[in-house]
């Protein structure tokens, strides 16, 4: 993670830059504050847009400890699925992206694979649900976290590969050649040179893969039931037939961002430290 200040001196944000950042942060955070306040209101206070209002913890209690809620279980499921699928997609995706960039593959291989992942990304997810449901049910993997992990990896692979590809492309091939001359095997070159240089990309791809897996809804809904349901499915239950239980939904949303943020922080640290062990800046 570069903390080099020379370069950023050239980019240093002037007043307009900093003002823009402040405005952007405000615009981004304001709806969150709204969700946060809503989570402490009773439904009627939300309906009437009351401010000030009498705060309550009832929504959090309902979400976490309510009779029909397994929210802590849902969070655990989401954490497991998101963490596993992110780790897996980063490994598989980084290897593939590096391979496509570094080695001379015939055009039909690289263009074919990249094109296929891109086209697959364009397919509306709901057309995939039927076949996947059938397939996983036949395999006995219906209602398992493994099924979710594998499908999430598939969904996130296109973006991961394409994104990491741009970062690997920036690495001058001479560096890798030099390492080769030095007796560094190709895998070592990948691990000790390419990965650290692509660190910002890895972090971005990792965050995106995690977030998309965390928030993924249609597949999670189709392939799970009560025990393995993830957070988005649990939150969707608050969107009921006639009305939305905004209060509980707000509380659940607030609760669900916390483990996600924590895991992302830790994940970043993990990637950074894992790569700086014996790596090159």
């Amino acid at each position, binding site marked *: 993670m570069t903390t080099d200040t020379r370069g950023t001196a050239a980019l240093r944000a002037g007043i307009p830059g900093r003002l823009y950042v402040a405005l952007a*942060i405000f615009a981004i955070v304001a709806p969150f504050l709204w969700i946060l306040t809503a989570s402490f209101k009773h439904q009627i206070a939300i309906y009437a847009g009351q401010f000030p209002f009498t705060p309550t913890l009832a929504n959090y209690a309902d979400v976490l400890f309510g009779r029909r809620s397994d929210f802590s279980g849902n969070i655990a499921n989401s954490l497991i699925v998101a963490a596993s699928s992110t780790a897996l997609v980063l490994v598989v995706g980084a290897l593939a992206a590096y391979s496509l960039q570094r080695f001379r593959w015939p055009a039909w291989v690289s263009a074919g694979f990249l094109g296929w992942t891109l086209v697959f990304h*364009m397919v509306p997810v709901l057309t995939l649900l039927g076949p996947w449901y059938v397939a996983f049910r036949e395999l006995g993997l219906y209602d398992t976290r493994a099924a979710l992990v594998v499908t999430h990896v598939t969904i996130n692979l296109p973006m991961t590969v394409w994104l990491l590809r741009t970062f690997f492309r920036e690495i001058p091939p001479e560096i890798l050649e030099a390492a080769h001359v030095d007796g560094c095997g190709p895998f070592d070159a990948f691990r000790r040179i390419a990965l650290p240089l692509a660190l910002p990309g890895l972090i971005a791809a990792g965050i995106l893969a995690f977030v998309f897996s965390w928030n993924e809804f249609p597949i999670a809904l189709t392939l799970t039931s009560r025990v393995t349901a993830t957070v988005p499915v649990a939150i969707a239950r608050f969107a009921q037939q006639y009305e939305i239980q905004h209060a509980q939904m707000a509380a659940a949303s607030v609760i669900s961002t916390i483990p996600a943020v924590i895991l992302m922080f830790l994940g970043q640290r993990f990637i950074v430290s894992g790569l700086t062990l014996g790596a*090159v800046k």
Partner: protein
Amino acid sequence: MRTVGALREATPGAPATRGGIGTLLDRSFRYWSLVPAVLLFAALTLYPLLNLVRMSVSTVGFANGVETWTLTPLRNFAAVLEDDVVRPAVVNTLVFVAVSVAIEMVLGTALAIAVAGLSRAKRLVRTVAILPILVPPVAIGSIWKLMYNYDFGIFNQALVALGAMPVNWLGSTSVALWSVIAVDVWHWVPFVFLILFAAVEGIPPDLLEAAHVDGATRGQSLRFVVLPLLRPAIVVAFLFRAILAFKVFDEVFLLTAGGPGTSTELVNLHLYKVFFEQNRLGYGAVLSLAVIAAIVAFLLVSRRVALAVAAMHR
């Protein structure tokens, strides 16, 4: 530019030779680095894709609990032409995608550059900036629906407090699509920001330093050094943002259900109705293929436009 020599010195002791499985792994690295991705992808995507193509030329019915497939390609394609909702849906979707993605690209890139220029708190700002994509889409849709609420929503409450007239955010055909676009922008600028920020962080500081030393102003170094270097990231961000924009569903469904009238009818929403509510799998599959074709067309056109713009600036 990092010198090759410096790198040589810095590389920690890499063993000169490796025996046995190590060499085998090394020699076949070229293959086993790509094969897992290909295998995984093939295993999971071939069946659904083939199924989709097959459905697009068939009519799927059910009798006695059993699926029946009958080949009816012409009927399915005719259905697209006869469907009155498709045309406004496509137009709205194109407008939605073009406007949302353009705004998001500009705002996101600007934010990435601005944040990269901060001297402190970069990581904190980044974590805060990506909060919107952490919220499940269903929650985003319902929260914004409340904020846009005519009688009690915070926007109208603020407007009334300032003495202005409340706006019919979701109930007016002229405003509704823009309200939906605003939600999309809020939701996805962080996505563009994240990718572009990583790219800016990846720019070798020497380059910027060199430009600075050469006397370039900030504006010039932005235009001639930074932006061109960001081009690949911009392309990827645009590519994926556009594709995702074509697939938007949750927010629109909750905010407007495609109304009022056909003003926020989007292709993916219509697809959902056809596929799920009306259970017309064959026609739904054709629509999906049509959507893919539309996305490809859109991307090709965008590429043309971008090349033309770049050529103009040179």
